[in-house]
């Protein structure tokens, strides 16, 4: 067994700041968020579930390229449905503005239902609504045909989805307790699922997490996909540079000065 060795070289200093993005000081800050996200995912595992049955899996995703890939997938989905377009484009911006994305999935809602005759899926007194619409033999659901054109291959066992909501709720509660910002999103969940995250799940929810001076998931402006912090910073780089080049002088020989007003000392 590996023996525990205590690191007694306990000294050092760390500078932490959210500016500039992806700098060492920002990455240190992001690592704190990753710790919080890990605890959030643990919380999802402890949430109540019908029969106490384990049914939650999760992925933690972080890093510039990884988040960019999710954001682009959300943007792709945005154009698949008019009802999604505006919201999903906004939410793609939120993905890029996040420190860590948690993808939480339920591994049973599509394959191993509760079989509790609760009626939540189709309103009946048995589970026939689910099974009549699934490929199965004697109640064992065959999920090997993954060619469905639907975003989510329903129907799902809604009792399991209810448990799934408990799990997402617990993750969000832990975020609130740890004072990191987080919100649940269908867009990020569906994008993550299509990208292969939470591979055993029938339904996935995305919970982006951030610890920045401004909560990335609230107080958005209109046309947020066009006007946001990244775009504003880029705009400053674009506009200011041009302002520089329209005038020029050799600062070693001459620098323009304000005109003297009357009575002003030299």
């Amino acid at each position: 067994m590996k023996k525990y060795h205590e690191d007694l070289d306990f000294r050092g200093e760390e500078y932490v700041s959210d500016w500039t993005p992806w700098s060492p000081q920002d990455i240190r800050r992001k690592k704190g968020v990753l710790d919080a996200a890990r605890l959030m995912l643990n919380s999802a595992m402890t949430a109540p579930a019908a029969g106490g049955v384990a049914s939650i899996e999760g992925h933690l995703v972080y890093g510039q390229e990884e988040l960019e890939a999710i954001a682009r997938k959300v943007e792709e989905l945005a154009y698949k449905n008019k009802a999604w377009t505006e919201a999903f484009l906004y939410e793609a911006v939120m993905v890029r503005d996040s420190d860590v994305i948690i993808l939480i999935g339920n591994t049973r809602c599509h394959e191993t239902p509760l079989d509790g005759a609760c009626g939540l899926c189709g309103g009946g007194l048995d589970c026939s609504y689910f099974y009549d619409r699934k490929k199965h033999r004697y109640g064992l659901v065959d999920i090997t045909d993954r060619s469905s054109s639907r975003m989510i291959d329903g129907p799902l066992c809604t009792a399991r989805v209810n448990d799934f909501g408990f799990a997402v709720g617990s993750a969000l509660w832990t975020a609130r307790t740890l004072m990191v910002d987080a919100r649940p999103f269908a867009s990020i969940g569906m994008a993550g699922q299509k990208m292969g995250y939470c591979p055993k799940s029938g339904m996935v929810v995305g919970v982006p997490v951030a610890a920045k001076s401004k909560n990335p998931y609230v107080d958005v402006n209109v046309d947020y996909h066009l006007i946001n912090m990244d775009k504003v910073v880029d705009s400053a780089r674009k506009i200011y540079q041009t302002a520089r080049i329209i005038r020029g002088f050799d600062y070693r020989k001459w620098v323009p000065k304000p005109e003297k007003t009357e009575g002003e000392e030299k």
Partner: protein
Amino acid sequence: MGHLIGKAYCIEHVVEVAKSIVLAIHKAPQITGKTKIEAEIIWGDDLVPIIEVLEPVAKAARYVQWDYETIKRCYEKGESPVIINIGGKVSRSNLNWNCGACGFDTCKEFNAYAKENTGGGQLGGPSCNWKIMDYAIACDWACAAAWQYNVDNRIMGSVGFALTVLNYLPDSDVKLGLALGPPRDMVYYSREEMHKDMTYEMDKADMVRCVPEMFTAFTGGGNPQYKTKNDWWAPPEYLNVGYSDAAMEMMQKVLFEEIPEIVVKHSDAIAARYQK
């Protein structure tokens, strides 16, 4: 100035805690932002209709039996649980997401189906799964809030069934009950209220029925013996699959005879509370 002694003030305070928990229910984040959630608080003598509905169901379902016995006995002892009735409106989609999770290609088709089939299930349904997610997040926040207040609690589908048949929260179509208190450890887990009711034989019978693979002998013969006793080979017993008249009769009697009788007894009084 003041001096609170005894237990009564503690039990009364669970109601105040419940009010704070309701705030957490309404504060819970939503995925859709469009799911209507409501919550009520109920305790003491007002639990009687719920307890009465759970009594026959308890005969048909063990997990309901434990909820029923716990709530009833605490109530009879003068230590009434306080129950938060949590409801959600989930049986229609106004999202137009057409995601397929419900089993239909479009929200429009789902809504048409739901219009014809709402109210047939024991706990509600049909449901838009994204709205159920919002509802469940709110329920989970209620549990987490209760946890932070250190009040023993359990979210109960059994109470949700009673709320549904008695038509509490008439504007909601999915309902669960969060039972809180009385103030002590382990009311709803490792339930002391049940100590003298579970015999060894009942416990063992439940295990044999519910965890069958633990009791199955060598399966190579295709018809494995079933180990329910020490000398399980003499005479041997085999697992059998078949229709159960007894189970179906019990379910029919509970759902279509006993519960309607209780509902009729209480329905006018409960409906009167929601008359605007």
